[in-house]
């Protein structure tokens, strides 16, 4: 990696759906250990941006670089292989597996034993080692009591924590959170904030797409505000909160087009 360069660089990202431009020439960067909040009203282009980074959809113009390498247009599993893991807004657990096995799926790319060695009886030590680390992650997010629990018995909030442990098991350098606060109780939100701070403290870059400003602003080290697909403000949470353009966008005051 080039020294001083940001881990994630989004440049002139543009995505159109038919006549609608969902994201228009978006630029931003993100470094390790930083928590970047991507906010904006409904339809501002947050999810489109998220999907372009995660590989769910492509883009029409622009570039996304991760550790200096272009990643735009790669499939989701290739993005994950490069060290970018994500959570889903609507929890997507693997319903047929207990909690610990779910987290081990997140570690999929950490396994180096080939299928042939597996068939020959190899890889048991690696399996045990990664299982031990997965267990630590389950404890880190506070689900240590539920290691062997069926995922269908988890509450919504516990399911969100499982999503986080599973993403962390891939030992990501960048983790993407898709509206992590949605549907959580105030107590769960507080715990979630602590976990996200803990992740960033490990040097992992964190990108949070969020609706809930009361949750995001105290958490983020920097915020990018989108409206109608374009960046209208960027800066510290305090600066953004006072920005007239942001107030306009959120309060819906009429602007001269």
């Amino acid at each position, binding site marked *: 990696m080039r020294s001083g360069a940001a881990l994630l660089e989004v440049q002139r990202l543009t995505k159109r759906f038919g006549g609608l431009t969902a994201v228009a020439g978006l630029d931003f960067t993100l470094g390790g250990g930083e928590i970047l909040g991507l906010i904006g009203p409904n339809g501002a282009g947050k999810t489109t941006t998220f999907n372009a980074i995660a590989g769910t959809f492509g883009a029409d113009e622009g570039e996304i670089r991760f550790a200096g390498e272009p990643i735009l247009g790669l499939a989701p599993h290739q993005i994950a292989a490069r060290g970018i893991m994500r959570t*889903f807004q609507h929890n997507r*657990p*693997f319903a047929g597996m207990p909690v610990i096995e779910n987290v081990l799926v997140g570690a999929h790319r950490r396994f180096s034993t080939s299928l042939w060695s597996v068939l020959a009886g190899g890889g048991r030590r690696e*399996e045990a080692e990664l299982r031990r680390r997965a267990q630590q992650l389950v404890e880190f997010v506070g689900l240590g009591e539920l290691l062997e629990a069926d995922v269908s018995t988890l509450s919504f909030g516990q399911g969100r924590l499982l999503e986080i442990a599973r993403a962390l098991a891939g030992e990501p350098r960048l983790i993407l959170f898709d509206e992590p606060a949605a549907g959580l109780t105030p107590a769960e939100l507080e715990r979630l904030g602590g976990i996200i701070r803990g992740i960033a403290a490990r040097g992992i870059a964190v990108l949070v797409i969020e609706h809930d400003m009361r949750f995001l602003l105290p958490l983020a080290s920097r915020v990018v505000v989108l409206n109608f697909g374009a960046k209208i403000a960027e800066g510290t949470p305090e600066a953004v909160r006072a920005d007239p353009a942001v107030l306009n966008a959120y309060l819906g005051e009429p602007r001269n087009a």
Partner: protein
Amino acid sequence: MSALRWLAAFAVLAALPFFLGSYYNDVYRKLLLWITLALGYNFLFGICGQIAFSHFAFYGVGAYSIVIFLFQLELPFPLAILLGVALCALVALAVAIPSTRLEGFYLALATLALAQLFIVVLNEGGAVTGGTGGLANYRLPEVFGVRIAGPWYTVVIVTLLLGTLAVLLRLDRSWFGRACRAVRDNPQAAAAMGVDVARTKVVAFTLTSALAGIAGMVYAFVDNTVNPPIFGLDNAFLILFMVIVGGAGRHAGAVVGAILLFLLPFFLSPLIGHHHVLVFGLLVVAAMLVQPRGLIGIYDALRRRLA
């Protein structure tokens, strides 16, 4: 400890044929082969979540290929085995690669077509496949001057069954088995975790198809005849029924389902003749409506209640 248990299982299963008459020995052999097939199909359908109707066709590809390679082309025994496995893997790849690129039921459709096409090829294969009459009047070649026969050949089938189970258990308890279950449960989330969904499906399909082919090679010397009606579609559905009734996704379920549906006709046929298929249909519908986890699911529920 674990090795001891495998050894004990082998000893019991392999000793049994020496106490059976030739009729019951034949029933026992077929039962072992059905369990082997159901175990492999359970990995594909129950663990990896793929609906395919080609498992029994690959059993046939294995059976026919070993007979053709050995007695039509007169290849040496080890080469014939290797080529038979390679052929199964190749056909499996040719079907799986295009169909997993498409969404949903295309694998089911493609494998249904393959199973039908296989029967057509057998019937129209002329001297190579023996046409509608198939191939017969061959015998297992001697290995190191010994011709394995009678209960000793049943020991070969026991080895096949336990070998298949060992391979499937190894796969299931590794990152690969977990990836298969993840693909079954939620493909989008699996991809986000770095699992190459299409590749996982293709590998699971190819491996289980090759295992079915190997079982077919062993079967070829059970009846010492291979002909088109044996490998028809009704048996493809029977494997699916075995796995559903026993409990999809569980190795024990596949074993229980195979034993039940294989033995049921022996008890039902004297009572209701060929209508036993109706009972199978009712069992499958009952399993899907009442207990989607099959007989093994009922067993789990009972054990939980008693505990």
